[in-house]
């Protein structure tokens, strides 16, 4: 009896093994940081890619079942980054994450992520179609760790009506982006215009220039406007440029002293900030390309009739007009089973195909990652996406992928805040940031 049972069981097992032989179940989890409803395609694109990959496998006679689960309900970047790192330490990391490219340096050293280049062909479409500078941003130490998920850039904005009241003709305003790009309209000109706008009562005091209310890549743009360089490509070290830092801080201090921006501006409520800039309370401000959609939800449905945009103007003769792009990237997390990493990397590559990525770009007001997206009707039909790509993306650079860039950026912002609020003089603030950086990351820093 027992023998019979055993035989039956054996037959059963053999039948199961030899049946539809290659059924393979793979479960993929995608965690997306800094994502709200309009960013749903960060996850949905992977699900669409899974469908395609399954069909491709089926044609080859393999049964591949991929289940994709997504998560983007993080309260903010802090929670997201802590969740990802702790999950990695605990061995329960998600398969794919969508995060800032700045995470590549620390996460690659920690072994949390694996290079996508181990699994995908970088010399084949669609990856050959991705803008080379964006691919570069998703690499570190000569290795392609990730694939850009979206692109954006951080333009300078002008309220047209205010400019008109300051005496600009419509043609002048239309020509502004070119003048900015040519270095003919500088931050000093902007400050003069903003001061006049406040003095003449066109805007209220503190609303001449309305910068970002908290730390972010945006402030590095002003450092660059005054001649600062973030990274020395030769040595791979970060650069602290004393003169550029001083000029950059001084510009904000001057603006505060002229009553153009409030001394207490930093730390203000983000929602209030959006509401005010969207409705013309401020003369000049800067933000991100995704603000386009936000302005509409804040009640401004005539962006083109009310707002002009350009690169961040040059600060002085040392600097240049510029803009920083801070793309999010798809990264594949280290898994016990390499096959899951492989499938994940392939999904990421498929999700980068122009049509799929365009869904995200247009839904979330981001810019394309690949050149041929410009030829897709959906993309072309968005005036914002097309013009922003044209005016901004060509001149965009990024913050460096460097282990110590986080410390650099935090210190730079804290110094700016200290000078801006008047709790330190510009010289004191610059000296303290320099002292702090040379003490903490001296080996990886060049002081000019």
């Amino acid at each position, binding site marked *: 009896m027992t023998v019979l049972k055993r035989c039956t069981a054996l037959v059963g097992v053999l039948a199961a093994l030899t049946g539809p032989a290659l059924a393979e179940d793979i479960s993929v989890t995608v965690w997306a940081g800094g994502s709200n409803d309009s960013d749903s395609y960060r996850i949905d694109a992977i699900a669409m890619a899974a469908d395609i990959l399954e069909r491709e496998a089926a044609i080859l006679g393999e049964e591949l079942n991929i289940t994709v689960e997504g998560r983007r309900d993080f309260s903010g970047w*802090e929670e997201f*980054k*802590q969740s990802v790192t702790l999950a990695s*330490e605990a061995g329960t990391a998600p398969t794919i994450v969508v995060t*800032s490219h*700045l*995470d590549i*340096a*620390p*996460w690659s*050293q*920690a*072994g*949390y992520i694996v290079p996508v*280049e*181990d*699994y*995908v*062909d970088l*010399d*084949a479409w669609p990856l050959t179609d991705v803008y080379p500078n964006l691919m570069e941003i998703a690499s570190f*130490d*000569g*290795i392609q760790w990730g694939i850009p998920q979206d692109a954006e850039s951080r333009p300078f904005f002008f309220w047209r009506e205010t400019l008109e009241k300051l005496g600009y003709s419509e043609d002048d305003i239309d020509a502004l982006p070119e003048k900015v790009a040519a270095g003919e309209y500088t931050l000093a000109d902007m400050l003069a215009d903003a001061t006049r706008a406040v003095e003449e009562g066109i805007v209220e*005091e*503190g609303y001449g220039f309305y910068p970002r209310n908290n730390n*972010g890549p945006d402030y590095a743009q002003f450092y660059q406007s005054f001649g600062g360089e973030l990274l020395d490509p030769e*040595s*791979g070290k970060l650069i602290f440029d004393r003169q550029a830092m001083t000029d950059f801080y001084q510009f904000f201090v001057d603006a505060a002293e002229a009553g153009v921006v*409030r*001394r*207490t501006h*930093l*730390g*203000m*409520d983000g929602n*209030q900030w959006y509401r005010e800039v969207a409705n013309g309370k401020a003369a000049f401000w800067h933000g991100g390309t995704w603000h386009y959609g936000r302005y509409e939800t804040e009640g401004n449905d005539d962006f083109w009739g009310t707002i002009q945009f350009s690169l961040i103007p040059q600060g002085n003769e040392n600097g240049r007009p510029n803009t920083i792009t801070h793309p999010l990237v798809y990264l594949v997390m280290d898994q016990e089973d390499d096959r899951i990493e492989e499938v994940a990397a392939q999904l990421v590559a498929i999700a980068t195909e122009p049509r799929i990525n365009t869904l995200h770009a247009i839904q979330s007001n981001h810019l394309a990652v690949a050149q041929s997206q410009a030829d897709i009707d959906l993309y072309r039909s968005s005036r914002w996406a097309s013009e922003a790509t044209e005016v901004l993306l060509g001149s965009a650079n990024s*913050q460096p992928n460097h*282990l*110590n*860039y*986080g*410390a*650099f*950026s*935090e210190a730079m912002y*804290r110094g700016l*805040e*200290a*000078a*801006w*609020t*008047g*709790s330190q003089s510009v010289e004191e603030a610059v000296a*303290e940031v320099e*002292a*702090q950086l040379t*003490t*903490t990351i001296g*080996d990886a820093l060049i002081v000019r």
Partner: protein
Amino acid sequence: MSSRWLGVGFLAPALVAVLFFFLLPVVMTVMFSFTNMTTATGITGGEYLLSKSRLRQLEAEGVSEETVERLESAGYQITEQGLAALAEEFGEDRADELREDYMGESFTARRDLERVLRNLNDDPIRRTRDRKAAADLFAVTILDERFPTEPAFRDALTESGIDPADHDALVKTAYTGWTWTTDNFKLLFELPATLRYAMNTAIYVVFTLAFNVGFGLFLAISTFYLPQHLANTFRTIWFLPRILPPVMYVLMWKWFTWDTGFISTVLSVFGVTPINWMTESALNAWTVVVLINGFVGASLGMILFSSAIKAIPLSMLYASEVDGAYRWDQIRYIILPQLRWPVLFMTSYQTLSLLTSFEYILLSTEGGPGGSTTTWALAAYTTALRNYGGNLEYGFGAAYALVLVIIGIILSVLYLRFFNFKELVAKPRIEQ
């Protein structure tokens, strides 16, 4: 079972809680603070990895130029050994073609070799996965390869023919995990901001504590003399700051103090320019921070002091009235002396909790303006857990935290000695 074991059994949950929620975090803080642990080093340990940026550091570490050169240029080489392996897995024809065209050549990047394999004339390797596997057969480089253990890494170095004199330095540079160090404490002393954080903490603790205890006492005594239902109503109102979720509570302060808020709106009627009353100056910020925390702490004081006052036999108060005492005399000579222990308890408890609390500061001023309300605990938090650029400094943050732990333990011991803990937990004298 003896009653002693029964006692231990009953205490067990508390002991476990103390172990896990107090002792373990303290032990871990001490451990972390003597490491250079960051996001990049990971928490659970490291591996051995030579990357391009690490190669750049090698010469500074005293590794010979020849070794650096050798490591850098190794790459992928077309050798007989590799070709034999290729022939076995991917066929003789492909191996032959590669031998003919590329024998002895080397490629610094795998990608270049992959391109060759992709473009073989006769029969290119078509699948990406196969191409990568085929290219790996020719790898002689150990760059960008992770070795899980030191012996494995040393073996690889030996195999690559690296001068053994350089092995130790290479092992040291290649290690990706954290190491023990006392540098964090040196840094604490060297950084210009440290002293400011310490001063800020002192200001924060002293003023908030004074407000907590003073206002708590005021509320307890003033409500004591009110009719019962009125007193309860007032106590409930003053309890609100504590029971409101911190985010809501601070949001209400923002609505109250910001330039678009209540104060500015009311004052603008009288022609005062709206300003941000919370962050206009360091003085403003401190006032708001002390009040926000003070009202939360005062409600606890109020409850404790109120119950202590209620424990005073009413007969004593009646007797004092017969003797002609005014309210003030009652407070001065009967109530306050009886409140000595609750006040001491509140003082010590609040000092310790204020030293480490930063959540209301983070939510309101974020340590500003210009870092003027950044306390030690907030600095520890931002260092260890908050960094836009991604590399969190767990070790250095723990060093900040450890200083607080030490101060806290010293203060606790002092409080216990000065306030004579045994007396503090003795039966109330009133009931004796």
